[in-house]
């Protein structure tokens, strides 16, 4: 029979002013299993703590009930007292005489006294059934995986590596850089996007602690917090990058010309190519879908001309395994596929109706036109340019319900760029609301208006080609009139959606996505860079639409979280976790279905299937215990037996 000690606290007059604490102690002393009971003015004070520790030794107590304030306040304090007294800290049970009794029932002392006794009886009943628990410890692999090499991934990788921790960075395109490297200038300061992002790309490539995989994808993730085993598929490049010097002879000589996807078909590129001049790594890959050698078996030009002998048409995809302790996801975004949804804007059939990203390429000095703003259809400079906000955003009918957060600002930037390069041009912007909530954003918007850009409040209903003009039918709701503009170029402020493949990646990683497909953060305000899965963090537009300042802030925050975790030798995991009574488990796996943390695995022993809890993943919610019909699943610290004992004690 366990030996329980009960310690009733007065909390000065907080409890003592309402309840008769000595009487409570006297009554508690008569409960079965209680070998010692006392009361004291302030249990949490130094003398109070000492009193408990000494009583434990003196009365050989092996269970402790503290009847005082909320366990949310002082459970840790009293657990430490137990530990100091040489007792397992989980042999403590608190009961809440202050918040749940004396403070709320001050007017009914008699009933309060009865309730308090009942609460102590409950605590004793539970205490009798407590068992010693030991927090698990896991050693940590001090390496970090970063998925996605846009500005978010780059920043996170650099921050983690600069803290002295090895990083594995996986980017699925042939080069690092993401969307940012395609942009011309960045709002609101208008600094050159490539000028500020390419040095970071180069820093990644040079960093001794960063292992870079480009043209690669994460295929499988096993293990858990602190110890993940990651399988990476390196796609065949047909170029041996250990030999290639990046001399460029091959891509100059390749006879193939295919539309360049990065330039929205405004230009062409060869089959062996560097995505853009500042690419990292600055070594080419062969696009197997278009290479004549690989599709038809004849050409071989690049192999002949390569001075380094780097071309290898027989190369295959290869798999690589990496061990890491934490993962940062930074897979970014894609543009809303407006060509599939907006028939009233022509489904992408009019060459001079383009997206904002295509406009970035047009206006970019390293883009297909060398930075001249011209119409894709005939190469002429436009005299009237119309911008249309919220395409694919704030549109429950054809697009997404949410606001994409960047398009108001990038459109203001584009409007400014048109005015700067083509001062004579007329520029109209159709908007619903202008959202300029960043530092310096509203000022930028006002400046663009000063430059003569005309903002019209109304959505555009239809765009169609008439001769070489685009007829834009919009409205000016402030005047209450329909407006028709004959434009030369129309730029759609296309919204933001999660990067292609985000759902599959979420499944591979065991993290969740929100209703729009962005990765779900653990808490929208207080844990915005963590996921519900410990050890996996989020950075950038993959968590929700974001501009560069927000992306970079979040990337550094994710890095800080990852570093904070990885700098520990090992981590302690709470012992209040589920466990399976193997004798009762029927292997039905009802528990696995409800677990929000994928913490339940299947083990097969002697042909019998059973559930097993991965303690390092279990967060101790207890949902599985209820799902389990035979009662095989138990939660330590909140077992069925303990709770039922509490129920009985309270109902007496």
């Amino acid at each position, binding site marked *: 029979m366990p030996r329980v000690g009960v310690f009733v606290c007065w909390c000065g007059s907080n409890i003592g002013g309402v309840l008769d604490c000595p009487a409570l102690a006297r009554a508690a002393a008569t409960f079965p299993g209680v070998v010692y009971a006392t009361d004291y003015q302030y249990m949490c004070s130094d003398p109070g703590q000492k009193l408990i520790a000494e009583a434990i030794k003196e009365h050989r107590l092996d269970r402790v009930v503290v009847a005082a304030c909320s366990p949310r306040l002082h459970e840790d304090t009293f657990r430490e007292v137990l530990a100091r007294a040489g007792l397992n800290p989980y042999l403590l049970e608190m009961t809440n005489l202050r918040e*749940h009794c004396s403070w*709320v029932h001050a007017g*009914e002392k008699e009933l309060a006294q009865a309730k308090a006794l009942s609460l102590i009886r409950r605590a004793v009943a539970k205490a009798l059934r407590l068992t010693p628990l030991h927090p698990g410890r896991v050693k940590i692999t001090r390496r970090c995986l970063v998925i996605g090499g846009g500005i978010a991934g780059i920043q996170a990788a650099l921050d983690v590596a600069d803290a002295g921790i090895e990083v594995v960075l996986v980017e699925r395109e042939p080069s690092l850089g993401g969307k940012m490297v395609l942009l011309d200038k960045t709002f609101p300061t208008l600094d050159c996007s490539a000028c500020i992002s390419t040095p970071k790309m180069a820093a990644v490539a040079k960093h001794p602690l960063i292992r870079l995989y480009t043209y690669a994808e994460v295929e499988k993730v096993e293990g858990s917090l602190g110890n993940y085993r990651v399988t990476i598929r390196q796609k065949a490049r047909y170029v041996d990058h250990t030999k290639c010097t990046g001399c460029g002879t091959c891509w100059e000589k390749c006879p193939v010309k295919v539309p360049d996807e990065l330039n929205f078909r405004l230009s062409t590129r060869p089959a062996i190519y560097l995505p853009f001049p500042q690419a990292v790594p600055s070594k080419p890959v062969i696009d197997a879908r278009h290479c004549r050698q690989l599709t038809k078996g004849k050409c071989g030009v690049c192999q002949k001309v390569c001075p380094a002998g780097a071309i290898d048409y027989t190369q295959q995809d290869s798999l690589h395994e990496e061990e890491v302790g934490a993962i940062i996801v930074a897979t970014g975004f894609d543009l809303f596929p407006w060509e599939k949804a907006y028939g009233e804007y022509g489904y992408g059939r009019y060459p001079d109706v383009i997206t904002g990203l295509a406009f970035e390429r047009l206006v970019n000095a390293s883009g297909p036109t060398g930075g001249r703003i011209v119409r894709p259809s005939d190469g002429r400079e436009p005299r009237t340019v119309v911008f249309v906000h919220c395409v694919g955003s704030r549109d429950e009918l054809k697009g997404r319900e949410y606001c994409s957060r960047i398009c108001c600002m990038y459109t203001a930037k584009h409007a400014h760029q048109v005015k700067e390069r083509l001062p004579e041009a007329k520029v109209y912007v159709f908007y619903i609301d202008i959202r300029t909530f960043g530092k310096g954003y509203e000022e930028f918007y006002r400046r663009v208006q000063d430059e003569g850009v005309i903002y019209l409040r109304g959505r555009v209903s239809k765009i169609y080609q008439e001769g070489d003009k685009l007829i834009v039918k919009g409205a000016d709701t402030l005047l209450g009139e329909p407006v028709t503009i004959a434009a030369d170029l129309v730029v759609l402020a296309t919204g933001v959606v999660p990067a292609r493949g985000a759902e599959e990646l979420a499944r591979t990683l065991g993290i969740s996505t929100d209703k729009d497909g962005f990765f779900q953060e653990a808490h929208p305000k207080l844990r915005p860079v963590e996921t519900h899965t410990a050890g996996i963090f989020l950075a950038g537009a993959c968590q929700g639409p974001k501009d560069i300042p927000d992306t970079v802030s979040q990337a550094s925050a994710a890095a800080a979280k990852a570093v904070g975790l990885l700098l520990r030798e090992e981590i302690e995991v709470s012992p209040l976790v589920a466990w399976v009574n193997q004798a009762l488990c029927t292997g039905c796996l009802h528990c696995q279905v409800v677990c929000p943390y994928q913490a339940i695995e299947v083990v097969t022993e002697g042909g019998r299937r059973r559930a097993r809890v991965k303690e390092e993943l279990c967060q101790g919610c207890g949902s599985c215990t209820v799902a389990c019909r035979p009662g095989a699943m138990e939660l330590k610290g909140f077992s069925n037996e303990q709770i039922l004992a509490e129920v009985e004690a*309270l109902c007496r």
Partner: protein
Amino acid sequence: MSVKEWEPKIVAFLCHWCSYAAADLAGVSRFSYPPNVRIIRVPCSSRVNPQFVLRAFAEGADGVLVAGCHLGDCHYVKGNYYARRRLWVLQRLLEFVGMEPARFQVHWISGAEGAKFAETIKEMVDKVRILGPNRLFQEVKDICVG
């Protein structure tokens, strides 16, 4: 026990993260409510096994309350959705066997809603007081708990 002395006895299963915190806040704010409620702390409303509720009634509780985080705010992502589904089934079952719905209530109370907690208890105690002692389960105790 004579009818005159009878006081409703209510057992409340409260989620550590929300409703238990709400009860703490009610205390800190001195929002008084009838002392008829006794609280059992659970990590999440999804930890509440319908069996616990049945046992409470069988042992003589006049009312049982389960409270957790608002839907969508669960500390464990979706525990309260599971709880809602399970407890809804239990509510139907109890109604079916003839128990007044007011005796078994499920509420979503956040850690900031101390006043709501106090209100909820007041209302529940009032209702159960009107219903009188819970006799139903005394009779079927053996069947339900085994």
